């Protein structure tokens, strides 16, 4: 066995150029598959229904974007629990979207800031991905939450957004709202949001927005702001299991409090799945067109390399046969060479992709749904190994078989 591996290694070293080219081709193609699968993996993950510790979202029943009166917030946060036996969610969070430009009338992407207006402390408990930060980032987040609680005008900005608007932490900015007309707010940038998913967004204290809306009639002859009854966009609830979720959803559906507009309560995964429905064909294409085509391409590249090397070594294979190698052993030898290249290159590629993308690039931007970046999951190492092995096997079966069937007499008559 060990001798085999040694022999395989020697053969691979012999034509270093071909081995290198094949390995590079494999790495490049595994790299694309890893990227594509990382996107699919994340989408599958968020769409998969969890059975415990799940999040529910409450939105306006029919319309997109969801716009509800803020008056709904308190009771929805309680899961519309009224009677003693009713279930209450473990935690909740409200989202109000506030978009503003750095100067009036400006519309370019670089000058727009979109902020979630919410309760600061919920940042650490309810936001996806922020509840499992590494220790140092978690500490920083707690620090920022304290700043936001003591200062209504505090704003946390994602690192990419901050760079885009050419501002620094500590500076003050004024945002001219694009979705709340005439609600122009001054902020102090007190900290950064963690890198990754929230790198292009911002978070503000909801009290600041609501106070501004409440103040509006005083400066406008008692007239309410047109968005006054539409400022609540989303309520998130945390429930322990599916059974509790159904009960909360029922409570909300049957509550008389939410008549105009009506609301709906669904699991976060199902809400996201609905949104991704628009991308269905695109995701299908990634999964069933792009990925297989790359894998087949990879097989072809490997197959080509291996069949070249088998053809060049036919006389040598014949000698091995004369020396007593059995056909199966030759077959294994060739398969082993392919597997060696495939597995090593696959692993190397996945590993490089993992570190380069996650550590260095801070994720891959792919414009699908509302996920600004995608990270390479740890399982990419297995993908790399698996893709390398499977495509190498698929690609080398034919040439390996032809090595197996090398006809000694035939080869020697040609060599003379």
């Amino acid at each position, binding site marked *: 066995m060990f001798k085999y591996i040694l022999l395989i290694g020697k053969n691979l070293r012999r034509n270093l150029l071909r081995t290198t080219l094949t390995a590079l081709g494999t790495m490049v193609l595994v790299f694309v598959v890893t990227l594509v699968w990382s996107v699919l993996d994340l989408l599958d993950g968020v769409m998969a229904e969890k059975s415990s510790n799940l999040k529910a979202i409450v939105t306006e029943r029919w319309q997109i974007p969801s716009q509800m009166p803020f008056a709904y917030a308190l009771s929805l946060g309680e899961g519309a629990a009224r009677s003693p036996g009713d279930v209450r969610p473990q935690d909740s969070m409200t989202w109000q979207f506030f978009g503003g430009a750095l100067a009036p009338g400006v519309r370019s992407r670089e000058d727009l800031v979109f902020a979630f207006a919410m309760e600061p402390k919920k940042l650490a408990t309810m936001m996806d991905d922020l509840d499992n930060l590494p220790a140092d980032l978690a500490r920083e987040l707690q620090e920022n939450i304290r700043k936001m609680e003591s200062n209504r005008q505090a704003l946390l900005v994602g690192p990419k957004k901050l760079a885009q608007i050419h501002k620094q932490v500590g500076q003050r900015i004024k945002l001219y709202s694009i979705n709340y007309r005439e609600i122009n707010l001054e902020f102090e940038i007190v900290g950064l949001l963690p890198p990754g998913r929230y790198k292009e967004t911002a978070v503000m204290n909801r009290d600041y927005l609501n106070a501004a809306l409440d103040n509006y009639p005083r400066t406008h002859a008692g007239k309410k702001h047109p968005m006054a009854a539409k400022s609540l966009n989303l309520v998130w609830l945390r429930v322990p299991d599916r059974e509790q979720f159904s009960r909360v959803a029922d409570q909300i559906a049957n509550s008389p409090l939410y008549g105009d507009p009506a609301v709906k309560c669904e699991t976060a995964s199902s809400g996201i799945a609905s949104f991704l429905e628009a991308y269905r*064909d695109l995701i299908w294409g990634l999964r069933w067109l792009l990925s297989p085509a790359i894998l087949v391409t990879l097989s072809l590249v490997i197959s080509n390399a291996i069949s070249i090397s088998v053809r060049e070594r036919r006389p040598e294979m014949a000698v091995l046969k004369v020396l007593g190698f059995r056909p199966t052993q030759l077959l294994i030898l060739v398969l082993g060479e392919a597997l060696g290249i495939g597995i090593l290159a696959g692993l190397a590629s996945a590993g490089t992709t993992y570190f380069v993308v996650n550590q260095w690039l801070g994720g891959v931007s792919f414009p699908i749904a509302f996920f600004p970046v995608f990270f390479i999951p740890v399982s990419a190492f297995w993908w790399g190994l698996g893709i390398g092995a499977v495509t190498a096997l698929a690609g080398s079966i034919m040439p390996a078989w032809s090595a197996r069937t090398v006809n000694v007499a035939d080869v020697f008559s040609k060599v003379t």
Partner: protein
Amino acid sequence: MSVSTSMFSHQHVSPPLALAWRLPPELTIPLGIALAVLVLLVIVGKIPLSYNVRNLAVRWRTTVLTALAFTLVISLQTVMLGFVAGMNKLTDESGQPGNVMVLSDGALDELVSNLGFSETADVDRHPGVVRDQQGEPLASREVYLVVNQPVSGTAGRQQRRFVQVRGIEDPVVAARVHGLELYPGGAWFSDAGVQSQNGSSGEAEQEQAVQAVLGEGVAGQLGNDRGQERLEVGDVFDLGPRKWIVVGIMKSAGSTFGSEIWGKRSLVGPMFGKEAYSSIVLRTRDAAAARSVADDLTTNYKKAALQAQPETEYFSKLSETNRQFTVAIVFVAIVMAIGGVFGVMNTMFAAISGRTQDIGMLRILGFARWQILVSFFLESLVISLVGGLLGCAVGFMADGWTATSIVSGGQGGGGKFVVLELVIGAETLLAGLLLALAMGAIGGVLPAIAAMRLKPLESLR
């Protein structure tokens, strides 16, 4: 080009005809240069091309494997670019050149635009607005909503789909403004906007169904739910709290309106809680007039703060997603192409090591180094050309496939859920051919240089 005729555009009906014109110079010029260089190389190279072709045939297995890798890369790129071309077609052709789209100030998309009824009552009195025979301005007041519709999802899960609904005051005027027509057998909805459902008991108190005119794309989507090709006139479906009945299907392929359901504004708006217009679309004489009317309304209209823009401009702003997809596609295609390049390098290095004696002999006969280089370079290009052409042919089969997607102006700009048709036009095919040639050239040049550097006397030993 009007939306109603765009579906019959030459590009779609007969691709070979399309090859004759409409080709962008940024593709034809490089391809022309590439082909000219190819022909020139064949002529000055002196070593007959048949030498290369026959060697490729002798090593048919590696040739096929290498060319197939090219085929896959190119066909994939073709399909992906066809997808974006379909999206571009929507954003390019949905807007009418003479139309002005009026939104409320600050709204990036009609979805978040609110125009009060009374404040905007005389927007269409603007002298630049074209009038019909009766002297009425060609102006369509519309409310645009995205509504979610429950669909039976997989594994019993409650799924929703987002459906775009447009409430229209006067469908005949709207159709003229947007340049849309109905398929024969359909009609626009009535002033009341409702009718009784067919087939049911017909009792007086039975709920009246909302009359709906569907775009082709959404008619197909809703039809698929119940196993039909598409919904037809007379079919009833659920949306929001009401039943809806199809009264007409719009000829709207290739425009974003194809993914919309149109109904009477006075029913649709209140049903989903929007008591305002989203947009007012005005028809002016031509593109120049549209520009000046839009500017005039934006700066001088005082009763409400408006943001008016030529409709074509509005739609072209929705191409941000297209752009992002294009970037992603080009990235993937290039990375895959690099993989293919390594494949062709393997093939060519092997070809050269198997033919060192040929090379040595040719050099001794007096063939120059560069002629050897050209010969092997051409051999690599032959592989790539064959693989690339095949890839274009395979990719072309996707022409006309329908797919769903989103077009949007990016962050916070809303977006439209669209059903699009893949457009594999001449540009896409040319781009595929160019990529194939580039792969062949890049993959072929190093081995060809290696062939050139062989010493004739040594290679004969």
